[in-house]
């Protein structure tokens, strides 16, 4: 599996209001390692992910995946955005097979691969449905199906579960975990949820407020089992992570409230 190396990465956007989203960020993700990234709102987490996906060119520094410099979208990297990037005008099977179609894979092969993936994710009977006809959790599965159809060895996710209700969310966290245990792909999950980060990240990267850098990395080697969620270690890890985030000002608005400030 391909590892990720980020060296001195700076992502800046020019325009009417120039913004430095990420500054001199260093990060190493080993091949086959699941990492979670967490930090205050607007800390450049999404920009980091877009740079890893090769969609935003670094203003400085470099990104390498599997030892090769990233200069554009990579064949076996799958990116899942917050709204999942499903196209409303394509059916489930066409959405799932879109990556293959763009890569010029012929229709017959596409159908075979997509059918198998949909089967595995419990979506087979919805192959001809449109995304609008599915629940949030099902849409999430379609987005995963697209990544699996590509046989991605690097999976980048930007708060993919944030729109789901708590129960569906846990269900999909279990699914993500199960897939990772099976496939052992390299995984970078950007999330706002402390519990999600602790459940799914073997290392948890805490970012500073913008411009984003790595503030700290929390080792979480116990992650990787469904039962982890119910363990004492899990709870302690969540508390530790919450404290680390507070130090980075992730809860700025609550502090103002406690100080009796106006909203």
């Amino acid at each position, binding site marked *: 599996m391909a590892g990720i190396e980020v060296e001195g990465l700076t992502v800046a956007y020019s325009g009417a209001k120039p913004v430095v989203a990420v500054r001199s960020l260093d990060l190493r993700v080993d091949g086959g390692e699941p990492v979670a990234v967490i930090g205050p709102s607007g800390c450049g987490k999404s920009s980091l992910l877009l740079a890893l996906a090769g*969609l935003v060119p670094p203003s400085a520094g470099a990104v390498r995946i599997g030892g090769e410099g990233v200069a554009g979208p990579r064949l076996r990297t799958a990116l899942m955005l917050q709204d999942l990037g499903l*196209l409303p005008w*394509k059916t489930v099977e066409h959405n799932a097979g879109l990556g293959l179609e763009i890569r010029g894979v012929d229709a017959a092969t596409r159908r075979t691969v997509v059918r198998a993936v949909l089967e595995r994710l419990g979506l087979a009977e919805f192959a001809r449905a449109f995304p*609008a006809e599915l629940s949030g959790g099902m849409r999430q599965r379609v987005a995963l199906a*697209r990544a699996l159809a590509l046989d991605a060895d690097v999976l980048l996710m930007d708060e993919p579960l944030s729109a789901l209700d708590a129960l569906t969310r846990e269900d999909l966290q279990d699914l993500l975990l199960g897939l990772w245990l099976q496939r052992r792909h390299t995984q970078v999950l950007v999330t706002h949820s402390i519990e999600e980060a602790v459940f799914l990240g073997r290392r948890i990267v805490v970012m500073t407020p913008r411009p984003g850098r790595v503030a700290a990395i929390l080792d979480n080697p116990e992650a990787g089992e469904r039962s982890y969620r119910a363990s004492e270690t899990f709870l302690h890890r969540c508390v530790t992570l919450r404290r680390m985030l507070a130090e980075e000002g992730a809860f700025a608005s609550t502090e103002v409230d406690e100080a009796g400030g106006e909203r």
Partner: protein
Amino acid sequence: MRPSKSRGMGYALASAVVLIVWQVLAWLLDTRALPSPGETAGALAAGLRTGILPNLVVSAWRVLLATTLGLVVGAPAGLLMGRSRRLDSVAGPLVFLAYPVPKVVFLPVLLVMFGIGDAPKVALMALIVFFQILVTARDAARAVSPSAVLSVQSLGASRWQGFRHVVVPASLPAIFTALRVSTGTAIAVLFFSETVAGTDGLGWYIMDAWTRIAYADMFAGIVAMGFMGVAIYEVLEIAESRLCRWTRAGRTDER
């Protein structure tokens, strides 16, 4: 197929209302200028064998040709403008300079350029459809969700694939709306141009009947024009329901 069935009912109901109001008005006014539905139906039946049908075909052909031209040129141009800031900065001002000008004013020039046959009428309607589609397609392409674009880019899509998989389908519903609006305007303008300069077409047929004081024939022409409008609207409706199936998805309350 239930929607089309209920639409059929709608048309039947609308026709009934029109016929009743028309009949009552004709009876109240009691003038030769407003023939009753019955007289008009007679004139229409007779006209179908003599004059109306060929003129209807001529007009319908002109509308079809003009709409196709306007669409084929306007839609791609608008989509490209919407997705390319550079192209938009050059072509945008030109378009917005020309867009508000009523295209009818170009009729004299078009008559000089193309004579009095099909060409000037088709060109005039094509201009109307073109601008409407161009402006709508441009706005629709600009409004395409950035994340949809990013997600196909992350899959390695080329610019052309981005158009095919995202920009075109995302803009289609808006383009259909523009088509419906602009064909309506185009038919009104077709009537005008056929009466000003022409020897055939439904517009000419109606004006000719008027000058002959053949009011029943005139109303038969008007009814035929109404049918043409309905036919065009229905064709667009069917095309849209085929090409934009997804816009009807997820509205479970309708099923």
